[in-house]
Structures are given as structure tokens and as C-alpha cells.
């Protein structure tokens, strides 16, 4: 093989590589794996599981209606590591929740959960994708975030105007969508009711781990609130067409606000 042929082969190889890096299509409706923990519709929630249907017995009486989420059992090592100032905030909020108050619960006020908490997507997620933009929609509180893929960067105007979902820009690295989110309000939570500062930024690497299984590796950085960056991984299963679950339902949260008066 002479040098011309080698170069020609390299060019062809390069074209082949380019063809392989056509971005994957994430579009679809997804549900997170086990969004409600061990209580999700399974035996503890009263629904017969496969093993129960095999044993024919009535499903056992549930022992809980939802996972405990008031902080009364403290924090676990896999949760974000908070600085003393923000740990004190967390403890203060925990006390209000243990007392039964919704004061610090944004979603109870029909507000968006905000990034990155919204990526829990407990009630389902719809991904809408085009060449220049990918949009993530959360059934919970009809929350939305847009990720711009056209190369734009957040302007100073954007940075001066923080929002719940923040401002997200992304690019493809092979089959992985790499997203950075800035301009986030400081009254939302990282997850649960873990507080953060106005300096929080979120980095994500999103890919189809296997057909129909979307993975989002989320890294949260906040020099004021966190002693170190915090990483979490979310996995979402794509709903099959015709399964009856491949359409999300309108949430219209404000419908219930009247009930609260």
C-alpha cells in the first residue's frame, strides 16, 4: 500500500467517524427507575407483585404512603456535603418539615422544582430534540428546561436574571450530550430540601446507556454551599409506544391552590 492509499484510507476513516458521531435521538417519554423508592406501587403500596401473585395471598397491608422526607433521620453520606452555614439552613428547614409545614416546599406552592432537583422527574419526563435545542419537560408541575445546542453562551443579561431551570447550553461529545447550567435561583434545592447558593452550577453528561435507557450523570458545584462537588446519576426508561404510558398528562398545579384557601 503506497502513501497515497494510506492517506485516502485515513480520509475515508475520518468520514466514517463523522458519520458515527451523528447525535443520538433522545426524544421520547421516560420514567425514572424507582422514583418512589421501595414504596413505588409495590407490595408496600398495596399493589400485588409478581411473587405475591405466585403465592396467591392477599397483598400485605402497606406500612407507608411515601418515603420519609423530613430529614428526621439525618443525612446520608451520599447526599451533598454541606458547609456549616448551609447545614444550618438544612436543619432549620428539616424542623419545619418535621412540624408538618410546607413553608419551604416549592412544589407545594406550584413552583417549578428547579435544577437539578427537577431531573428527579418522579412523575415522568418528555424529551423533545432538534438539532439546535433539546427540551426536558417534567410532568411534575409542568416544569420545563431548554438546552441550547447552537453554540450560544449565556449573556450577562441572562446571568443577571437567575431562574428555576437556569440557563443551559450543551454540545455533543460523541454519543454523550454535555450540558452546563448557570443562572440558577438560590431558593431552590439540589435534591430533597438540600439548599444551595447563587453560585451553584450544574454539569451533566447525558447518554443512552443502552437502547431505551437514558443516563444523566449530574455534577453540582457550589463553592459557598458544598464542601466538594456532588455527583449523582439518574436513569430513565423510555416508555414504549402503545404502552399507555408514552403520553404525559397535564398537571395544572394551580387547580389545587384554591383548595388550600
Amino acid at each position, binding site marked *: 500500500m503506497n502513501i497515497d492509499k494510506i492517506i485516502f484510507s485515513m480520509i475515508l476513516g475520518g468520514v466514517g467517524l463523522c458519520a458515527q458521531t451523528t447525535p443520538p435521538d433522545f426524544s421520547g417519554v421516560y420514567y425514572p427507575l424507582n422514583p418512589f423508592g421501595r414504596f413505588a*406501587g409495590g407490595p408496600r403500596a398495596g399493589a400485588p407483585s409478581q411473587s405475591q401473585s405466585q403465592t396467591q395471598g392477599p397483598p400485605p397491608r402497606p406500612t*407507608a*404512603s411515601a418515603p420519609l422526607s423530613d430529614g428526621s433521620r439525618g443525612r446520608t453520606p451520599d447526599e451533598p456535603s454541606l458547609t456549616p452555614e448551609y447545614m444550618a439552613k438544612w436543619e432549620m428547614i428539616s424542623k419545619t418539615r418535621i412540624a*408538618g409545614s*410546607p413553608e419551604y416546599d416549592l412544589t407545594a406552592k406550584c413552583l417549578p422544582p428547579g435544577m437539578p432537583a427537577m431531573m428527579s422527574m418522579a*412523575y415522568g419526563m418528555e424529551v423533545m430534540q432538534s438539532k439546535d435545542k433539546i427540551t426536558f419537560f417534567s410532568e411534575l408541575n409542568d416544569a420545563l428546561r431548554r438546552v441550547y445546542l447552537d453554540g450560544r453562551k449565556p449573556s450577562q443579561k441572562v446571568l443577571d436574571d437567575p431562574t428555576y431551570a437556569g440557563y443551559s447550553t450543551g454540545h455533543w461529545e460523541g454519543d454523550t450530550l454535555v450540558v452546563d447550567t448557570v443562572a440558577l435561583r438560590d431558593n431552590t434545592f439540589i435534591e430533597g430540601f438540600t439548599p444551595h447558593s447563587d453560585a451553584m452550577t450544574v454539569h451533566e453528561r447525558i447518554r443512552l446507556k443502552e437502547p431505551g435507557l437514558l443516563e444523566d450523570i449530574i455534577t453540582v458545584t457550589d463553592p459557598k454551599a458544598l464542601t466538594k462537588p456532588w455527583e449523582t446519576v439518574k436513569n430513565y*426508561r423510555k416508555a414504549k409506544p402503545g404502552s399507555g*404510558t408514552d403520553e404525559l*398528562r397535564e398537571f395544572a398545579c394551580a387547580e*389545587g391552590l384554591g383548595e388550600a384557601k
Partner: protein
Amino acid sequence: MKVPAIISSAVVGAALLLTSLLLVPGAQAHHSNSAFYVTKVITIKGVVKEFKWTNPHVWVILTVDDGKGNKVDWKAEGRPPGILARAGWTPKILQPGDVVTIDLSPAKDDSASGLIARVTKADGTILANAPPPTE
């Protein structure tokens, strides 16, 4: 005519009681799970007075005999219609007059309300509070 003080106090007391009942956070408010003892479950049985298929929570108003000759209307709060629909519920799955058993977590404020763990209809049909887990 001057209202006797004792009656006035009673009226004010009743008004305050009524007001407090109307403002009970556990009663039909939209709130987080923190309003309930989610890891406790009690069981009530009664007659469906009203089924509200509304966001962000559905409500079952259940008339329960308290065993002392009194009828008490319990307010059982469920997850949103979207998620319950995926668990097999429909907007008309419960009708006024239906006799049902509800397992629910009681409210922290001691009001006659709770967070639904499951509903069991008279024919034994179980309505779970979430769809089966995604795997």
C-alpha cells in the same frame, strides 16, 4: 340588645373553631408529604361522599362512622391524576355511595385527613398509590 358575655364567648369560640377547621393545613391544602406521618398507616372504612380528580392531588371525601354514633368526613389525599392514571385509576373509578377501605398516613395536625397508601373497593379491587416501579 346587649349580648350576654357568656353567649358572646361561645359564639366567638365557635367562630374560632370553625375558622381553625377551615384553616387546618391537613384539610384539602396542597402541601408536601411532610404534613403526614408517612411511615404510619391507619385504616378507615366508609362511604365515598365525593371523589375529586384534581391536580395536584386527588381527594376522596369519605364518611366514616366513628363508632360513637357520629359520622365524620375524612379527607384522603392522593397523588396527582397523571400518576394515578398510570396506576389504574380513572376519573370515575370511585363514585359517591361506594363503600371503600382506605389505608392512609394520618396528618400531623390530628385533623381527619391523611395521605393515601391504597384504596380497596368493596369488590376487593386494590387501587395502589403509584404504578409498578420502572425497572
